[in-house]
């Protein structure tokens, strides 16, 4: 019988997830493979018992870690927005210049991008619907 270790990891996880368990038990490994696998699993268990697991860090330490990381992330986010604004003003500036010089090309680009976006959205929908259909099948 296949040992599913995930339940045994001791986490009361009520987040039900239907994973393709059927697929993983479809092919039973050959007899000699099963013996080998049993050896490996035994070894993993031994390893787990022998190696001293460090205790989970205390909550306040984790909160410090989180605070530090969040600060770093906020700073990086700010830099990204600043960079984006520079790019934005450049691109918009250029685009407006184009609009005032040659409205036809400008309108053509507008039309192209619009069509491309709609096509992208449609293609996404088509593929997403296909996935849902095969998922429920």
């Amino acid at each position: 019988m296949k040992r599913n270790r995930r339940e045994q990891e001791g986490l009361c996880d009520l987040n039900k997830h239907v994973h393709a368990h059927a697929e993983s038990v479809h092919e039973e490994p050959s007899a000699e493979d099963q013996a080998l696998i049993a050896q490996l699993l035994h070894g993993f268990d031994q390893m787990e018992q022998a190696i001293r697991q460090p205790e989970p860090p205390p909550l306040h330490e984790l909160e410090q870690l989180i605070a530090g990381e969040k600060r770093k992330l906020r700073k990086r986010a700010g830099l990204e927005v600043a960079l984006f604004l520079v790019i934005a003003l450049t691109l918009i500036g250029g685009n407006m210049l184009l609009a005032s010089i040659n409205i036809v090309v400008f309108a053509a680009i507008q039309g192209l991008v619009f069509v491309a976006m709609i096509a992208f959205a449609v293609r996404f929908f088509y593929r997403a619907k296909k996935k849902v259909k095969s998922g429920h099948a």
Partner: protein
Amino acid sequence: MDELKQIKRAQRGDSQAMAQLLQAHYSFLMKYLIKMTMNPALAEDIAQETMLRCIEKIHLYNGKSKFSSWLITLATRIYIDQMRRTKVEKQWKNQEQALRRTEWQVKARLAEWTDAMHALTRLGYEWRLPILLKHYYGYAYDEIADMMDIPPGTVKSRIHHGLQQLRKELTIDEKE
């Protein structure tokens, strides 16, 4: 639904919820990492990295898989990236790893370090990982494919060849 609520709170920025989440899953993460890397020191480093990555990407978690699965997916990707980057130094690293292995082998008071585990350690991570994920943790082929960022067919063939290689190594050992 307790954990789901906690995750939602952490996603909205509740640091306390995030800390509780990380603490709750820490030992699962560490156990996985030790089995994956076969290197306790590296495991701790990657655990740290993983937690930071988790904080960064928590709002991208979409509930499609278990949180613990998502967490070890992060860890696996970090590990694979590291291993890929140190390809050149990998030989040296393997030596060092072997040294550490014998070190804690002695400290670990193991009755016997089975030949199979020994051979598994010598196997590259690309073959060891799918075997660990499929036969110890029970993940499906496409879940493993997603974790390792490789096609599901490759997962299947790696497990097959990995086991084959192990059998070969073990029969060679027996003959000695």
